[in-house]
């Protein structure tokens, strides 16, 4: 909802043109509405003002008529009328009434005494007095009667007003007509007149005057006693304008008088404000003002009680200054805010509706494309929705399922195992509300087997949700077919915990089981058998990995079968390439031995694979819990140590861990540690053991033997560190050092008596396998200017036979470059005679073990002879090692052995000692004191 609101608001605030236009229109509408409201208020004020004005006019008229009546009363009340006194009296009134133009006195004169009257007036000083109509008013006509109403006095008497002197008011037709009627009633007459000579409008108010007080007279008598009139000339326009302006101020735009009862309605313009906008304002301001002025008010009021047919039409424009700009703007902004709120609400509504539609569409799509079967029911389990996946899963179409009971369907599809708690739980969903509430607190994932329409068993996982919709509840079931998932999970689990090749446990499972055993409350003693196959690498290298794999499968099966026979709890793990570990409840020492021997035996049995007859053995290290360790790592390490011990014991055997083995291993690690520093510290040195030509007794060369004198460890034998150096690949550096030292020595011997001696150097299999080794030695020899024949490469029989096909080529290279090539320890390994004949060997060296029994041990004699015969047949010379007695020497000489070396001839000597020894035996060993003494001793024995 919050996101939806944000979406809507963000959508809203993305301004769009229609929004701006709408906002502007709303702003303007409310502004105009407020203006209209203010206009109406102003109109009401205007109406009140017109009423006030009307009252004001009527009051003014009343005041004026009162004044007129008072004057008339004053005049008529005088016994001796004095026009002059009246004039003086009236003169004082005029200044107090600014709109009274003048006050006058007119007398009725008939034709008979007209002349006399005129003369009288002249005598009074009005020398030009003459009764006549000067047509001072547009309303003046010709008086054809014998009566005149002559103005005799006018106040103030100024030249401007003097024009009225002598004017015959009976020339005003209306006045004349009404005069006598009004005289009879002593009533005021009122006449609107237009002055002809200046266009001004005046109102003539007249009141009759009588010779005696009219109040004492009846109408007839008043008619008899009528003397004339007192009249007022009223400047009506200034009055109307000023009073209107007082009320309306600048708002007043026009005043008109209309005579409504005239046959033709007569309009008189009284006032019109000069139109046109201010010159100071801008064009638009002026236009705006003109526009506002169109908003004007119009009222019509009565201004005279005597002439109600005369009405004043007032036009007033709306005063801009009265506009409350703040309110207008406030209304505009309020409108804008309302607009924004409405837009926001609409946007929210439509946004929400759109969102719901989208949601509905999505849900529909989700239901349609869901990988889960989605079934929605009411609280009774009547199906309301059934998606395609449900059709697919159960085989029932939507049309046939809508309205059906889902519990009944489940009962129908179950394997009639209604006692199944999971199924019971599922049915409870459709039971009652309390049941459902009870389920609310439980896990909502149910897993059970059902049958589909085709009666196929499927494992399904059901999750459900209960949704309250208004007063009812809807139950949604999400059903997933997990048949294949469970199978895959089992496979994955198997892959994760079992070796795919041998189907044995892998390290992970083994470790878990191992720890499980250890973590038991009272763990039983058990044994670990660490099995490493002997010769598996060779099989792999020679016959390929596929054969190797098949071999491992066979071995695994044999191990399993063998262990099974022990009837003890066990775990078998393929630990590495050709390593297996067996954890077995301690069978006891005897049974353990039997079991181990049976294992060795079973493993060693020939295996036929793809036409190959293979035979591998195993070295087994044994460690027992808790005797040899309390944890897996210790036990494994100790079993591994024991396995190495078995390897050292010659393989195809087993060895039980002993603490000394650890010590030995520690010693080995110590040697390895110091070995790395030995070269840098120049701790190695070479000794040379002479090789003698048995036929001549002359020394033909020496075998270089390495020695290590460690400052910390003391003297270390080669058999103690060579293997370690090979395993750690330090042998390559050591071998280089040996070669360099020998070449240096050969170079030293050039041009000496020892220049023809060759030096045989032992080359480790690791060093030999290192590419470029021979080329490097050759390069060094060339640099030293030495012939290659002075250096003999000694390889062990195992090295030579390690990779015979490849080695043939390399041996040829060695030989072609001139180096000698000898095989050390010949007879200890298993040389293939077929390969031996292919190898371009120059020398075979009979191992000391075969020499030791000579000349008494028949086997050794046979072997020695066989080797000699073989070598000679292949044109290979033979060196007998370890010749320690004269008997051995003589036997070998007799057996046509080519060369011999051994302590009998000389122990290995340092360079200086060797050179002394060589000098001493420069002719022949047989001439040496040693040989001669030995021969003498032999002779004596014989």
């Amino acid at each position, binding site marked *: 909802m919050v996101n939806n609101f944000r979406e809507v608001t963000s959508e809203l605030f993305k301004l769009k043109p229609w929004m701006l236009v709408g906002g502007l229109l709303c702003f303007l509408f409310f502004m105009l509405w407020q203006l209209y409201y203010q206009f109406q208020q102003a109109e009401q004020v205007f109406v009140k003002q017109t009423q006030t004005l009307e009252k004001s006019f009527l009051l003014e008229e009343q005041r004026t008529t009162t004044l007129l009546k008072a004057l008339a009363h004053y005049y008529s009340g005088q016994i001796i009328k004095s026009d002059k006194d009246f004039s003086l009296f009236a003169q004082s009134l005029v200044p107090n009434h600014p709109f009274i133009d003048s006050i006058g006195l007119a007398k009725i004169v008939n034709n008979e005494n007209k002349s006399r009257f005129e003369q009288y007036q002249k005598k009074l*000083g009005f020398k030009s*007095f003459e009764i006549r109509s000067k047509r001072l008013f547009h309303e003046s006509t010709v008086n054809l009667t014998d009566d005149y109403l002559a103005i005799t006095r006018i106040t103030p008497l*100024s*030249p401007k007003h003097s024009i009225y002197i002598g004017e015959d008011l009976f020339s005003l037709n209306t006045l004349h007509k009404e005069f006598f009627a009004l005289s009879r009633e002593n009533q005021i007459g009122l006449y609107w007149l237009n002055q002809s*000579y200046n266009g001004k409008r005046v109102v003539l108010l007249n009141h009759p005057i009588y010779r005696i007080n009219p109040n004492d007279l009846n109408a007839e008598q008043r008619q008899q006693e009528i003397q004339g009139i007192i009249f007022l000339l009223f400047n009506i326009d200034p009055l109307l304008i000023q009073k209107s302006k007082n009320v309306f101020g600048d708002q007043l735009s026009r005043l008109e008088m209309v005579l409504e009862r005239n046959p033709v309605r007569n309009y008189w313009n009284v006032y019109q404000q000069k139109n046109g906008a201010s010159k100071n304002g801008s064009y638009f301001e002026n236009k705006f003002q003109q526009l506002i002025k169109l908003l004007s008010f119009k009222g019509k009021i009565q201004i005279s009680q005597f002439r109600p047919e005369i009405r004043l039409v007032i036009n007033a424009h709306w005063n801009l200054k009265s506009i409350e700009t703040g309110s207008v703007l406030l209304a505009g902004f309020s409108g804008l805010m309302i607009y924004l709120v409405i837009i926001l609400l609409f946007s929210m509504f439509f946004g929400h509706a759109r969102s719901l539609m989208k949601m509905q569409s999505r849900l529909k799509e989700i239901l349609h494309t869901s990988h889960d079967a989605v079934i929605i029911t009411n609280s009774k389990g009547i199906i309301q929705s059934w998606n395609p996946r449900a059709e697919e899963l159960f085989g029932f179409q939507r049309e046939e399922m809508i309205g059906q009971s889902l519990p009944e369907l489940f009962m129908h599809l179950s394997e009639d195992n209604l006692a199944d708690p999971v199924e019971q739980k599922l049915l409870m969903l459709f039971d009652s509300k309390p049941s459902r509430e009870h389920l609310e607190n439980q896990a909502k994932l149910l897993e059970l087997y059902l049958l589909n329409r085709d009666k196929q068993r499927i494992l399904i996982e059901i999750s459900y949700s209960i949704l309250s919709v208004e007063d009812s509840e809807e139950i949604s079931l999400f059903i997933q077919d997990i048949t294949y998932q469970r199978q895959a999970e089992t496979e994955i689990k198997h892959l994760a915990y079992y070796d795919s090749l041998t189907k044995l446990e892998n390290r992970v499972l083994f470790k878990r089981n191992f720890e499980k055993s250890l973590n038991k409350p009272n763990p039983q003693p058990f044994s670990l058998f660490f099995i490493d196959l002997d010769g598996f690498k060779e099989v792999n290298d020679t016959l390929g990995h596929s054969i190797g794999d098949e071999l491992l499968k066979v071995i695994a099966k044999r191990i399993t079968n063998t262990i099974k026979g022990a009837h003890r709890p066990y775990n078998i793990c393929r630990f590495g390439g050709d390593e297996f570990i067996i954890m077995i409840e301690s069978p006891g020492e005897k049974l353990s031995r039997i079991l181990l021997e049976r294992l060795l035996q079973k493993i060693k049995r020939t295996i036929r694979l793809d036409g190959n007859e293979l035979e591998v053995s195993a070295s087994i290290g044994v460690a027992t819990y808790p005797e040899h360790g309390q944890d897996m790592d210790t036990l494994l390490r100790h079993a591994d140590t024991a396995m190495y011990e078995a390897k050292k014991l010659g393989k195809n055997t087993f060895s039980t861990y002993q603490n000394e083995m650890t010590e030995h291993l520690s010693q080995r690690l110590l040697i390895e540690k110091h070995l790395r520093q030995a070269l840098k510290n120049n701790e190695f040195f070479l000794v040379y053991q002479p090789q003698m030509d048995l036929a001549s007794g002359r020394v033909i060369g020496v075998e270089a033997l390495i020695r290590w004198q460690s400052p910390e460890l003391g003297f270390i034998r080669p058999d103690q560190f060579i293997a370690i150096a090979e395993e750690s690949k330090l042998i390559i550096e050591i071998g280089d050092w040996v070669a360099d030292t020998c070449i240096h020595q050969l170079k030293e011997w050039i041009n000496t008596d020892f220049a023809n001696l060759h030096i045989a150097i032992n080359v480790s299999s690791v060093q030999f396998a290192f590419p470029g080794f021979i080329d490097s030695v050759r390069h060094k020899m060339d640099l030293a200017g030495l012939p290659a024949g002075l250096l003999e490469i000694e390889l062990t029989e195992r090295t030579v036979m390690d990779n015979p096909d490849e080695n043939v080529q390399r041996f040829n290279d060695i030989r072609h470059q001139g180096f000698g090539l000898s095989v050390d320890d010949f007879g200890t390994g298993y040389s293939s005679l077929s390969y031996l004949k292919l190898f371009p060997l120059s020398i075979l060296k009979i191992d000391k073990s075969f020499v030791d029994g000579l000349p008494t041990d028949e086997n050794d004699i046979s072997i020695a002879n066989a080797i000699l015969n073989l070598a000679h047949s292949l044109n290979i010379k033979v060196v007998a090692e370890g010749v320690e007695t004269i008997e051995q020497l003589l036997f070998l000489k007799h057996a046509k052995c080519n060369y011999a070396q051994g302590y009998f001839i000389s122990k290995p000597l340092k360079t200086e000692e060797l050179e002394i020894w060589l000098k001493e035996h420069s002719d022949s060993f047989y001439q040496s004191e040693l040989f001669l003494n030995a021969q003498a001793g032999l002779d004596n024995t014989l």
Partner: protein
Amino acid sequence: MPRPLIERYLYSLLFALTGLFCSTSLAAEPAEPDVKKLPTCAYIASYAPGYDWQDKLEKALKDNLQPRCHLKTFYMDSKRLKNESALNKVGDEAKAFIDSVNPTLVIASDDNAVFYVLKRHYRNSKLPFVFCGINYIGGDYGLPYRNTTGMIESSAFDQLFHILFSNLPSKSHIGFLTTTGTTANKNVAEFHESVRSQNLISSAYRAHNQEDWRKLFKTMQQDPKVDFIILDNNAAFPEWDKNFNLEWVKQYTQKLTASTHEWMMPYTAIGLTKSPAEQGEWSAKASIEILQGVPIHYLAVVPNQENILWKNKLLLQNIKESLPQELLEQARTYPFKSDENAPSRFLETSMEKSW
């Protein structure tokens, strides 16, 4: 074209442009009020400046008219002229003056201007005339003409007699002391007209000089038949010894004396005077109406309206039978100037009854 000729043309063009610029610049300046556009009014004064009546009348005339009219004045100074021919001559000069200024209208103040200029030269002519200061009763000018209007001096005698006799009803005889000359003649005629209209008993005396005037004054004060004495204008005596006469009047005043001329108030106990300013103002306003287009025959000839009741406290204290105090309280006290109360030499003069 030769080079000098080209230069000449160029210079001519430059001057022409400069001249054009100057003329347009001048034309663009705001025009000052053009007195020539005002209509010209000719004012023909019967008297000359220095005469109180004339000065006040002329001042009121100018104050009201001059903003609307360019007024050109001709003073006839007729009091200086002793014979008819001189007056006719100055009347001709005035006409010549009027012809020379060619006025829209003419204002003529007092009798000599009306008689020797208007009546003689412009009666019923097309040139409008506004007259004032005319003692109508005393004159025979045939006014009004078709081209005239104006204000006449109404007789104050009626009102004055009314005041005197209504407040002192036991009195019946009224004396009138005047001088010589046109105005005096008209005043006498007016006096007699009023006396006749009110059916009063009267005696009129004409003094030919100031000594004569003093004698007559003394005689009238001492004549038991005369109840009141009206003193007319003394303008006919240019040699008037003001201080001496004041002392004289003060010494011999025992009856109620009155005048219709303001400047005679130092010599009388009460006065009911006409206003020269009213005459001048009316003339000005009537002229304005005419200038505004009101036909001259629309404008009525009217009598003056303003009369002022004065009292001279100095002389009133000498009079036994005076007016009621209530009436005198309504009268204005004459404001004596500093030299009017100064003692002067008493002159004994003879009095002569004129007729």
